[in-house]
């Protein structure tokens, strides 16, 4: 049971070859490139959703920040589609791997910080000390703000990993419990099954929310630095 619980998080391989790259590239197949002025229904719906999201997300940004529009939209689409595909039974979810999420978080966070230091050095350095800090607290607060800055990519990555992994584990556990309870008490198994359905609906929401939170935080870090 214990070994089965974590087996779904192991990197998949077929005949000794790692197929993680194929799995990571798969969601892009679900978003065909629009080739006409008026496209088919799937592409039109996707375009409408992307326009809605990008309008809302980029409203706070200035011209410099809006150069990141493609990156932010790609990020939310990738994480959202990967998380949703991971809810299919027996599928592998790349965003359960901390290495993958750190690989997304560190370059994007570092990009925003370097942008801030490059174009607005004084303002970026001023972020290390909140306005109105009493004089004796300044050294301590500079240290605290530095630590909070350096923790941002870790928090981004671990938040996504933990949420998706925990959700999948819960689904595994409650699904296993439902199956085990069928032979013992059908009523209890039915109640557990209802809980499983509600949890799955929650996981659909969590999959999209976590994609949105990740992208929104990167967008906020960018806004602070542009």
């Amino acid at each position, binding site marked *: 049971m214990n070994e089965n619980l974590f087996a779904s998080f192991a990197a998949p391989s077929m005949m000794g070859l790692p197929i993680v790259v194929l799995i990571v590239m798969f969601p892009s197949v679900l978003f065909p490139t629009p080739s006409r002025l008026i496209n088919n229904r799937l592409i039109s719906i996707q375009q409408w959703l992307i326009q809605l999201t990008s309008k809302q997300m980029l409203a706070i940004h200035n011209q410099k920040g809006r150069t990141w529009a493609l*990156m932010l939209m790609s990020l939310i689409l990738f994480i959202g589609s990967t998380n949703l595909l991971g809810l299919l039974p027996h599928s592998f979810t790349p965003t359960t791997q901390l290495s993958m999420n750190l*690989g997304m978080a*560190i370059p994007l966070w*570092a990009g*925003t910080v370097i942008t801030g230091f490059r174009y607005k050095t004084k303002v970026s350095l001023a972020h290390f000390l909140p306005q109105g800090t009493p004089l004796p607290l300044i050294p301590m607060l500079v240290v605290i703000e530095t630590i909070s800055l350096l923790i941002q990519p870790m928090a981004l990555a671990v938040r996504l990993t933990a949420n998706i992994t925990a959700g999948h584990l819960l689904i595994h556990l409650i699904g296993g419990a439902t199956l085990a309870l069928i032979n013992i008490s059908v009523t209890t198994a039915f109640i557990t099954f209802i809980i499983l359905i509600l949890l799955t609906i929650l996981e659909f929401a969590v999959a999209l929310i976590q994609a949105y939170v990740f992208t929104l935080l990167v967008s906020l870090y960018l806004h602070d630095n542009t």
Partner: protein
Amino acid sequence: MLQNLVKSVWVPMKPYYTQAYQEIWLGMGLMSLIVYKIRSADKRSKALKGKIFASSKGWGTKDTILLSQDTVSHGL
């Protein structure tokens, strides 16, 4: 195939890769440095542990003695 790749990917994405994402490339360099440091440290510690437990008496070289003293002092 390469020509098609250049026409469909590189040409539309060139301003992003060359101008807009300069800082992200630096961030990717930082991330690869971190990955390299972690992997090399992991390889080094595994090689050292392998030396201790693979040798017949376990106290062969200066490195293994120092590491074993370190593991003993930490109660491992």
